[in-house]
């Protein structure tokens, strides 16, 4: 009976769980009004299950080529297409959300901006990201993108008494909505050129029409869609919002945004570039020039601008731009390797960058403002040795030093670029990584070798939840470096499944 398959709950589980849980939280939070501990425990528990749901589904799929769809068998009607790529990305969103939610209440309380609404919003944005990556239809991609973006705008501006927070949110909102305009118009143009809004349909229509460069309407539409996602990942020259928003948003929100948005946008880029605007024989060749230019600019400019930053949140923002560059380079490799590298790097990046932001979230001044100037963490080693070690691990992993996950990820992207014949791009990546090492080492020198300075934060509270979050992040960073096969083996077929 085809009617039943229209609502295939199993295919929607990873999206549906956070969405429904967020709604329930929204209803029940007023009942738990006076008990912050309960509100928070409910959020942590729910986020844990949001990791567990896709993770269990992953363990049941052993071959990597499986997928489940709603409306299976009716071409162009499948609104939900859940495959391994989507499940892995769901796990990443869940991990980023879990790590962020662990430190959220302590940070917001000290900043005087504790509002329990942030928990449902976090669930909604996880649901939106999950919705966006588990579909092959542009309608759902748009809806998912907006669901998580709108939740993030609100989360950024949640500390509404603080001008930096409101400014960051407004900037993010205006540029985000601007890019959404491009996305809609791009989709309309692609729809006009091909008559399809589903990626397999678009792909089939394109391969029936011959050379893509002779179709201005399709090309403009595809370029506009690409620009939207380049904006979301913060690729140069669409990166202007990144440092401002990362600095102004509450630090745990920044942590979630840095990892989650990037994972979602790269996941959907993989899907759009390959099963939508790519073709089976020439996987990413059509987009080679655009992607290479973006990757080179992003790697170099991100790393160079990070060199001159004194505020660590801004420094990490530029570092996140640079890492988007490495990931763009991973997209260029043939899909079988590229998809695997992108997912592995996103996972490693999630652990190390969220970990670093969690360390930063512990530094707050008397008024609860962010105390993230590099002089304010100087001499941390003498006062908080274990916290310093954690920060050291994240920084070394971001540089790409073995045996951390950041090294394995960078190494694989580098090798894949050389093997697919892009030696020049690989050389640029090497150069960028060397520039990058300079500013991460600056942080390490400040933490371990400098004496504490005058504008020191007197009291650093490290709540138990933050210890757990840091422990997860450190273990994850090391695990991906020491035993990469743990993740790489199940990832082996992720790319093959994406081919049209």
């Amino acid at each position, binding site marked *: 009976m085809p009617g039943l398959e229209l609502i295939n709950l199993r295919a929607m589980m990873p999206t549906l769980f956070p969405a429904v849980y967020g709604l329930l939280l929204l209803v029940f939070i007023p009942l738990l009004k006076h008990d912050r501990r309960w509100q928070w425990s409910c959020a942590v528990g729910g986020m844990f299950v949001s990791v567990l749901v896709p993770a269990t589904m992953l363990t049941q799929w052993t071959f990597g080529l499986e997928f489940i769809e709603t409306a299976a068998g009716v071409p162009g009607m499948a609104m939900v297409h859940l495959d391994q790529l989507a499940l892995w990305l769901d796990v990443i969103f869940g991990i980023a959300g879990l790590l962020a939610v662990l430190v959220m209440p302590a940070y917001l309380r000290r900043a005087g901006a504790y509002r329990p609404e942030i928990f449902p919003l976090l669930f909604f944005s996880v649901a939106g990201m999950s919705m966006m990556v588990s579909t092959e239809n542009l309608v759902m991609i748009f809806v998912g993108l907006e669901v998580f973006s709108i939740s993030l705008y609100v989360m950024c501006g949640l500390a509404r008494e603080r001008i930096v927070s409101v400014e960051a949110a407004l900037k993010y909102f205006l540029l985000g909505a601007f890019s959404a305009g491009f996305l*809609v118009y791009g989709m309309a143009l692609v729809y006009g050129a091909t008559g399809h809004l589903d990626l397999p349909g678009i792909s089939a229509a394109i391969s029936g029409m011959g050379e893509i460069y002779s179709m201005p309407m399709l090309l403009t539409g595809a370029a506009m869609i690409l620009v939207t996602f380049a904006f979301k990942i913060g690729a140069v020259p669409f990166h202007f919002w990144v440092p401002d928003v990362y600095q102004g948003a509450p630090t745990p929100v920044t942590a979630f945004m840095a990892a989650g948005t990037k994972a979602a946008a790269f996941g959907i880029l993989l899907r759009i570039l390959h099963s939508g605007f790519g073709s089976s024989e020439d996987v990413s060749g059509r987009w080679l020039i655009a992607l290479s230019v973006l990757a080179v600019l992003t790697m170099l400019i991100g790393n160079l601008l990070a060199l001159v930053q004194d505020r660590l949140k801004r420094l990490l923002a530029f570092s996140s731009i640079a890492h988007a560059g490495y990931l763009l380079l991973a997209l260029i490799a043939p899909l079988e390797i590229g998809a695997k590298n992108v997912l592995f790097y996103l996972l490693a990046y999630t652990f190390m960058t969220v970990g670093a932001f969690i360390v930063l979230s512990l530094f707050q001044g008397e008024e609860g403002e962010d105390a993230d100037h590099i002089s304010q963490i100087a001499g941390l080693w003498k006062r908080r040795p274990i916290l310093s070690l954690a920060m050291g691990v994240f920084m070394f992993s971001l540089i790409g030093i073995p045996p951390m996950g950041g090294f394995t990820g960078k190494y694989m992207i580098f090798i894949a670029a050389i093997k697919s014949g892009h030696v020049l791009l690989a050389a640029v990546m090497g150069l960028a990584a060397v520039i990058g090492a300079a500013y991460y080492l600056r942080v390490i020198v400040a933490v371990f070798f400098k004496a504490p300075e005058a504008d020191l934060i007197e009291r650093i509270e490290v709540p138990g939840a933050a210890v757990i979050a840091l422990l997860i992040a450190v273990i994850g960073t090391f695990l991906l470096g020491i035993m990469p096969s743990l993740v790489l083996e199940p990832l082996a077929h992720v790319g093959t499944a994406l081919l049209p």
Partner: protein
Amino acid sequence: MPDAPSAALLLSAVLFSIGTFGVLTRRGAITILMSIELMLNAGNLALISVSRSLPGGGADGQVLALFVLAIAAAEAAVGLGLVIALFRLKGSIDIDLARLLRW
């Protein structure tokens, strides 16, 4: 004399350009919001005109247009909320005043 869908597409391209121009040149947050709405609705117009010209009516383009309408409303609500928060703190909605976050 162009046929109906390409005339509508032309109109939508003009609207989209006006919207983009408005976002890039205006400084008042509300005007920028209006320009963004114009861009989204230009997209809607293009979607609907394409969908009419497709054989069989092309329902999915019209469905997307409906979703865009709903989401634009949600976006405007959040945006206006943020503008009000900025106004309370600054007493103005000129986005050039929001310049605290600069290097």
